[in-house]
């Protein structure tokens, strides 16, 4: 098996199901220093994605684009826009193809990371989702089994969250209160963790 319309839809469906449970915690985390909408963003966004899954086009580029658009339907908040940018980056790479080997995942994620950095003007080390994504990519390098990749990403993200917890946020709403953010897990990093948990199922 490889990445195609079916496996893509199945993966998004698992994420959507997982977010029904995970969103409250994300809201709570974001509410400590931010505006408390991260769980809502993830829940509404993945619900919108779930709606389009039955009718995804075969072209993986178009399919990912459809998901990105669906995700943004629910929200204009930062994480939602960054995630949509990530999906769109993958969509561009895969445009015109109906299948891709699992081994291409780390490269797709790297493209997404680059895009998110360009869009959000944040850097690694700013204590954002970017750090969790970068660590995940590194951990997945050279792998070709999707479940193993998810597990590696989860482990790397958990390590990143723990390691950065006591550093200050440097960007976004929480970045406005850098000092007070010390001791708090970055909500975006936790959202990425929950995404991986969802993908893994």
């Amino acid at each position, binding site marked *: 098996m490889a990445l195609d319309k079916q496996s893509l839809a199945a993966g998004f469906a698992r994420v959507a199901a997982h977010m029904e449970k995970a969103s409250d915690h994300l809201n709570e985390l974001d509410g400590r220093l931010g505006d408390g909408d991260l769980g809502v963003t993830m829940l509404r966004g993945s619900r919108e994605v779930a709606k389009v899954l039955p009718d995804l086009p075969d072209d993986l580029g178009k399919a990912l*684009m459809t998901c990105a658009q669906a995700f943004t339907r629910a929200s204009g908040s930062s994480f939602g826009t960054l995630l949509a*940018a990530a999906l769109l980056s993958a*969509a*561009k790479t895969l445009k015109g193809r109906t299948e891709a080997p699992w081994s291409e995942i780390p490269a797709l994620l790297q493209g997404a990371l680059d895009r998110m950095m360009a869009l959000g003007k944040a850097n690694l080390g700013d204590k954002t989702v970017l750090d969790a994504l970068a660590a995940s990519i590194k951990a997945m390098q050279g792998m070709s089994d999707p479940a193993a990749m998810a597990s590696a990403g989860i482990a790397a993200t958990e390590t990143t969250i723990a390691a950065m917890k006591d550093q200050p946020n440097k960007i976004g709403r929480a970045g406005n209160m850098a000092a007070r953010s010390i001791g708090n897990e970055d909500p975006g990093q936790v959202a990425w963790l929950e995404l991986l948990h969802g993908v893994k199922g």
Partner: protein
Amino acid sequence: MKKILNDPFAYVDETLEGLCLVYPEYYERTGTGGRVIKRPGPAKKGKVGIVSGGGSGHLPVFTGYVGQGLVDACAIGEVFASPSVEQMVEAMKATDGGAGILRLYGNYGGDTMNFDMAGEMMEMEDVPTTTVKVTDDIASRPKTEIEKRRGVAGIVYAYKIAGAAAWAGKDLAEVTRIAQKAVDAVRSIGVALTPCTVPQAGRPTFTIADDEMEIGMGIHGEPGSRRGKLLPADEIAKEMLDALQADRPVGKGDRVSVLVNSLGGTPMEELFILYRKVKEYFDTLGATIVMPLVGRFACSMEMQGASFTVLKLDAELEELLKAPADCAFWKVG
């Protein structure tokens, strides 16, 4: 908070509802949550579409300038907040006449991130798009970081000029060039006397003493260049004109258009008092004012204060500025 409203969370939607009820001939609501305003009817075939967007609370900006020879569609966020990517995409789709789309909006972080995303989505569908961001507020950044300046009332001139170019049938590259040329030629600075209240927040955006003004403050209450005692009108005008002149000098024989804009609460009387000094200033420089605009063009709800915008003209810009345009808030020709 002293405002005439119902549910603060319905402020934007009820505003748009009323707007479209009053002017069905100008504005049509579409898109997710009705947060896109477009010209009624289908997109004009073969015409470059111009799409804008931004937060609410600035009427006539941004929504009001949807009209012939102006903007084709606008995505609308909550008060002082960016619209979503989806709404921006919908605005672009509503205005796609097959000749490509220019995204023309004020340079703010959230809007930029979302419009960039939305643009990529349109390109995935093989619709060519370009971006021009309005960066006219000289008080927001020094000249060395000119492209990072925020956009304020100068967007009105950018709409007018790019809108006229698109209406005349020019192609996307040409409309984009002209829009960027208008942005390069426009400079603004404002003075705020009182704050305003975002309905959902329920308290003023900033505080300022009863005898103070802040020169250079942004339309959302972003810090300005100088806070001080409220000066006489002529001195306020001179300080702002000197700052504009230092940033982009206007000289003998130049032709400019000038917008003296109320931030909302400041009455017309005071704008006319300011305009006397503006006229005198450019007369002294030996420059000619063409098509002066005095009134409420880019507001912050009930905020008291005013802004000056100067557009330096050449023959191309002047012709486009004077070309016909028609929306509920502004008619030219």
